[in-house]
């Protein structure tokens, strides 16, 4: 795009010496007039002027309309010059001349009048821009434009799209365009033949058009639309079940991540650590810190935060263990109170040192958006990554506990401390390492949570209750229990939520756990053998 633009500029410069710039000026004058109309017209008439700009044949039209759609077209108050805003943060904005394309530099926001746009206009503009995009060579762009047009076709663009459809060769783009035209035909023209095109479509605009047609006075049309809707509803039911399951697993994986560190410190070591949530928070803040250190590379920063978050939380864990917990061995009530105090201290520390405001953690490109299985079922990518991450962390922990010397020593010390020591195991060292491991895993959870929730001083508080719930439900001291408990609680919650509401669903889950613990006090997978009596 930029090469032909600069070429044409070069050409103009060459012409300048010969022709004294007369044609270019006439062009600019017309453009200036159109833009002035756009700026001064009331909302109701802006649509017509947009059409004029798009139809003016000026090659800069797309650029102006795109800037306008994004709220980046502005007028300098004093001179009436139109500019495109390149950078709109802070009090001074960097702008470029809308006509010449030359960057002007920074202008105070006081001196700029932004051209206002609203949703209705943006919808119209998107339609116009999509029609323009249908003519580009890139198939992906054409397909996206064709998909966007579903529900966006109007009387003005109907003919034009029809012509474009007959020239289109790619089957996917053709299908999308046919659907877009069919929606218009059903909605505006009441065309029964078009209903057949929409049968089985999972697109919301298509369904909306059919729902409208099913209510129409034309009995034939209504019957056809109803039949089409039935077939769609069948498909939707299946998709909805799959969606609920996915939501459940994804919530479950978040619970597992938050709880699995606690499953080690509380479950294996028996330390009631109320500051567990704040260790999660530290992991999340590490992600934020990393992104501050590596501006412009949120993805890399996120990947590097995985080891960094682990280290930061593990070191904090060691500090807590050395200064407080080791002195309170075997006194659970005091440990609970002391660690609760630590959690408050950590929260206020973050508030005072960093800020009481939430920090913005950027989601990297490859983690935002969703994978579309079909129109009704799409899996959000960030959640998908977190499910995978939770499973990897779980597998890693299992490996450490089962296959390494540390794991063996941890199990030995927790099962019989005195005997383990007499076998030459340094129990104090094992305590430190276990607590560091559990804390570090909490840090990992924080890195993951930074992608789906707020990074703020209260982050940890929201997860501490859930974490204890999962560990207790799963059976204290059992990692498998934590996994199963987390996933099943997540799924139960998501099954209940649609009909009970979020608040009641949470209460029902808690009631369920209370009843369950009455029946099986040691959770889903109780510890067996001598360790269980300790």
């Amino acid at each position: 795009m930029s090469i032909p633009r600069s070429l044409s500029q070069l050409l103009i410069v060459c012409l300048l010496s010969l022709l004294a710039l007369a044609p270019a000026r006439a062009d600019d004058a017309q453009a200036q007039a159109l833009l002035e109309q756009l700026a001064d017209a009331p909302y109701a008439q802006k649509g017509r002027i947009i059409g004029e700009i798009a139809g003016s044949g000026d090659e800069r039209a797309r650029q102006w309309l795109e800037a306008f759609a994004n709220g980046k077209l502005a007028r300098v108050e004093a001179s009436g010059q139109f500019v495109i805003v390149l950078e709109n943060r802070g009090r001074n904005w960097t702008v470029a001349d809308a006509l010449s394309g030359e960057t002007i530099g920074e202008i105070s926001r006081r001196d700029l009048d932004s051209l206002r746009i609203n949703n209705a206009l943006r919808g119209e503009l998107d339609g116009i821009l999509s029609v323009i995009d249908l003519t580009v060579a890139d198939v992906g762009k054409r397909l996206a434009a064709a998909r966007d047009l579903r529900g966006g076709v109007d009387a003005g663009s109907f003919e034009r799209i029809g012509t474009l459809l007959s020239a289109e060769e790619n089957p996917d783009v053709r299908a999308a365009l046919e659907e877009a035209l069919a929606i218009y035909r059903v909605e505006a023209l009441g065309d029964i033949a078009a209903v057949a095109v929409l049968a089985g479509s999972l697109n919301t605009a298509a369904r909306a058009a059919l729902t409208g047609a099913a209510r129409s006075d034309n009995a034939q049309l209504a019957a056809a639309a109803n039949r089409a809707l039935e077939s769609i509803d069948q498909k939707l039911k299946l998709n909805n079940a799959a969606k609920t399951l996915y939501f459940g697993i994804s919530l479950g994986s978040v619970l597992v991540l938050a709880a699995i560190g606690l499953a080690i410190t509380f479950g294996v070591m028996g330390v009631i650590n109320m500051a567990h949530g704040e260790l999660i928070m530290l992991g999340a803040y590490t992600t934020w810190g990393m992104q501050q250190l590596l501006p412009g590379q949120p993805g890399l920063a996120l990947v590097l935060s995985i080891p960094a978050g682990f280290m930061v939380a593990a070191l904090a864990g060691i500090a807590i263990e050395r200064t407080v917990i080791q002195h309170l061995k075997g006194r659970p009530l005091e440990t609970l109170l002391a660690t609760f105090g630590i959690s408050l201290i950590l929260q206020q520390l973050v508030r005072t040192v960093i800020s009481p405001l939430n920090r913005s953690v950027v989601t990297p490109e490859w983690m935002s958006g969703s994978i579309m299985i079909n129109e009704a079922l799409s899996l959000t990518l960030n959640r998908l990554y977190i499910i995978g991450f939770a499973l990897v962390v779980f597998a890693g922990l299992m490996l450490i506990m089962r296959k390494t010397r540390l794991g063996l020593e941890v199990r030995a010390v927790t099962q019989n401390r005195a005997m383990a020591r007499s076998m030459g195991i340094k129990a104090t060292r094992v305590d430190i390492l276990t607590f560091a491991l559990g804390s570090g895993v909490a840090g990992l959870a924080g890195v993951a949570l930074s992608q789906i929730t707020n990074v703020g001083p209260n982050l940890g508080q929201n997860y501490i209750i859930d974490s204890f719930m999962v560990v207790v439900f799963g059976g204290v001291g059992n990692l498998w229990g934590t996994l199963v408990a987390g996933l099943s609680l997540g799924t139960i919650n998501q099954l209940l939520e649609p009909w009970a509401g979020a608040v009641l669903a949470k209460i029902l889950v808690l009631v369920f756990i209370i009843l369950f613990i009455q029946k099986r006090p040691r959770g889903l997978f109780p510890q067996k053998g001598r360790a269980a009596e300790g």
Partner: protein
Amino acid sequence: MKIKSLAASVALTVGATGFSMAAWAEDPIKVGILHSLSGTMAISESTLKDTMLMLIEEQNAKGGLLGRELEPVVVDPASNWPLFAEKARELLAKEKVDVIFGNWTSVSRKSVLPVVEELNGLLFYPVQYEGEESSENVFYTGAAPNQQAIPAVDYLMNEIGVERWVLAGTDYVYPRTTNKILETYLKDHGVAAEDIMINYTPFGHSNWQSIVSDIKAFGSQGKKTAVVSTINGDANVPFYRELGNQGIAASDIPVVAFSVGEQELSGIDTAPLVGHLAAWNYFMSVDADANYDFIDKWVAYKGDENAVTNDPMEAHYIGFNMWLEAVKKAGTTDVDAVKDAIIGVAVPNLTGGYATMMPNHHITKPVLIGEIQDNGQFSVVWETPSTVAGDAWSDFLPGSRDLISDWRKPLSCGNYNVVEKSCGGAEKVASN
């Protein structure tokens, strides 16, 4: 950066005190600031404390009030509702402050209310709230429901043509009351019960998957759908993120929010949210010189080029200036005199107009609807033709319909029942 600005403000304070020794004739006038600096609400309230400190500093530089210096007294109620009452008592009884600026949540205001009334203090409350209250000692500079929620719904109904409504809120008093008002209002305007979906979520809710998917399904029934959101505070961030991830654009299902401002958006990448709406009485992007001056001062005070301003800050700006005017008019800081003098006082707001204190202790405000931009700001798409006076008692709730509030003599009543012609209808409202 932080340390530098701290040093600067210390230097300023020292300078000011040095100056005051020579110039201030009498004892200082004490201004109490009752905002949480720790706990959950610190995210919103600590900014308001800074706003007050800035306004007081500025007024002192202009020569104080009645020739006396203004002295801020800052306490930290730590987001703990009972502690709000204790700290208010401390401010009024021990520190003997002449006025209090404070509170954010309704529950904290309700906790402070009996104390302020018992000790005859003055409280300026800067946040939009559910209405259904009028106290002789409290001035409500935030929006009542008829200054925010109702105009926003009008806009969606008339300008966008919305026919189906999702009322989503956090589970506490403000969303529940506002939604009750909105539900009655919508039904009065011919919206069928099956076209209204009401949903409540707990504080800090972060797993929005199934709710957003429900909203998506609710909105694909062939009628234009909108979400009216009274979701509070930072639960909004994951909510909007989920909207973006599930591909709900503002042109499909717009969300209009009453608790999302520039502050909340500063913690989030706003690109997927462009076009969603918020209703306030002030936006940082408002094109008015008073606003630009205020932003310049705020940026300079915070020492942060990216510092944002928001609606409750404007409310404090208006409230503080109204109090100054009233004290000047009364010639004293005596609470009873100021209370009488402030009714009818008009001061400039930041959107280029004037705010007037009404006899019901609410103020007049313009209502603005803004769309979220990619830079975390709002662009105003609609505004009421003139300012709207705050209504203490909603016309859309049974029981409160007949109540008015007028603190001028001789009526001097916060809940006068115009049907029964008697004062004290509040008990009936409470029992409803």
